[in-house]
């Protein structure tokens, strides 16, 4: 593979960490630009593969960054990329968390929290639709998506059942 220096990996992903509002899916175009166009660590096809693999694996979608680090510079690359993407944003979240809990009794804080609730709901719903658009391979995939959504809304059972069923259905039908 390439001998991309770890310091560059650390720089690229720690800066991305601080601008990645909306997480991995929202930051995807910028990650691709840095990794493929600016630094040439991967080809477009290699990047698409990394994206697919990280979405087939469990865990936060940002794990794609760990995979990129691993493919570019081995285990050291994986560790450096993972820490670089996590530490800056997590530190900021920690500071905000402390600040909010210190002012928890202030009426403005509870209003801010209440005001964020509907925003979060709308954006989660939006990302479900955006994911559906990416996953759409015909009516059966749409049906699986809708059925899974209904399962989650109406059942308290572990959603893994619905996911497994959808996956199995696709294998049988395909």
């Amino acid at each position, binding site marked *: 593979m390439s001998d991309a220096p770890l310091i560059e990996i650390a720089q690229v992903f720690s800066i991305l960490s601080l601008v990645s509002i909306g997480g991995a899916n929202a930051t995807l175009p910028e990650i691709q630009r840095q990794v493929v166009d600016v630094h040439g660590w991967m080809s477009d096809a290699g990047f698409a593969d990394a994206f697919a693999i990280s979405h087939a694996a469990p865990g936060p979608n940002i794990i794609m960054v760990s995979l990129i680090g691993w493919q570019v510079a081995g285990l050291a690359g994986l560790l450096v990329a993972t820490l670089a993407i996590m530490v800056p944003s997590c530190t900021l979240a920690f500071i905000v968390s402390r600040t909010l809990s210190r002012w928890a009794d202030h009426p403005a804080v509870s209003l801010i929290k209440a005001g964020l609730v509907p*925003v979060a709901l709308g954006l989660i719903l939006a990302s479900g639709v955006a994911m559906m658009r990416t996953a759409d391979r015909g009516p059966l995939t749409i049906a699986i998506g809708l059925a899974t959504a209904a399962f989650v809304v109406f059942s308290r059972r572990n959603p893994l059942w619905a996911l497994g069923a*959808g996956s199995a259905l696709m294998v049988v039908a395909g």
Partner: protein
Amino acid sequence: MAAGHEGRDTVGKAELFLGFLKIGMLGFGGIAPWARHVIIEERRWLTEKEFAAILGIGQVLPGPNTMNAAVIIGDRFQGVPGVLLCLLGQMLVPLVIVTALGAAYLHFADVPAVQAAVVGAAAGAAGLVAGTALKMARNIRPRPLSLLITAGGFVAVGLLGWPLVPVVAVLVPLGIGAATLERRA
């Protein structure tokens, strides 16, 4: 109903680690639905509203909303060690799996059954995320103005594909305004 219960006052360190280990391990298609399932329905650490507010804070900060939520939840129950345990728990299994998958991928990507399974799981994951948002909305029952904010975010980002940052920048003040008016009413 999940919305009715109270959140917990304390959650131990081992419990936090194991809970987030499970969230990370289950988290196909993104973490938020599984975090909600484990934290609200299974272990009842937080109320639906508390969880949504924490996710909302996580959403407006840079970084994945669920990772920011892990930081806030870890800090709330166990301070700095809690933060580290939640993050480690959430990342540990996915990191191992994703590297194993990466190593195996080149050998199995051409098998049709593997492709079909991945396509089916991706469709299910999309439904999972949408269903989670609908369920949270049902449990929280936003008042009309707040519901308008939710719909606005959904349409702008989900249907029109507008960039997230300006949408969030506009909706957050509107959301706070709506919360202020609805509290007064």
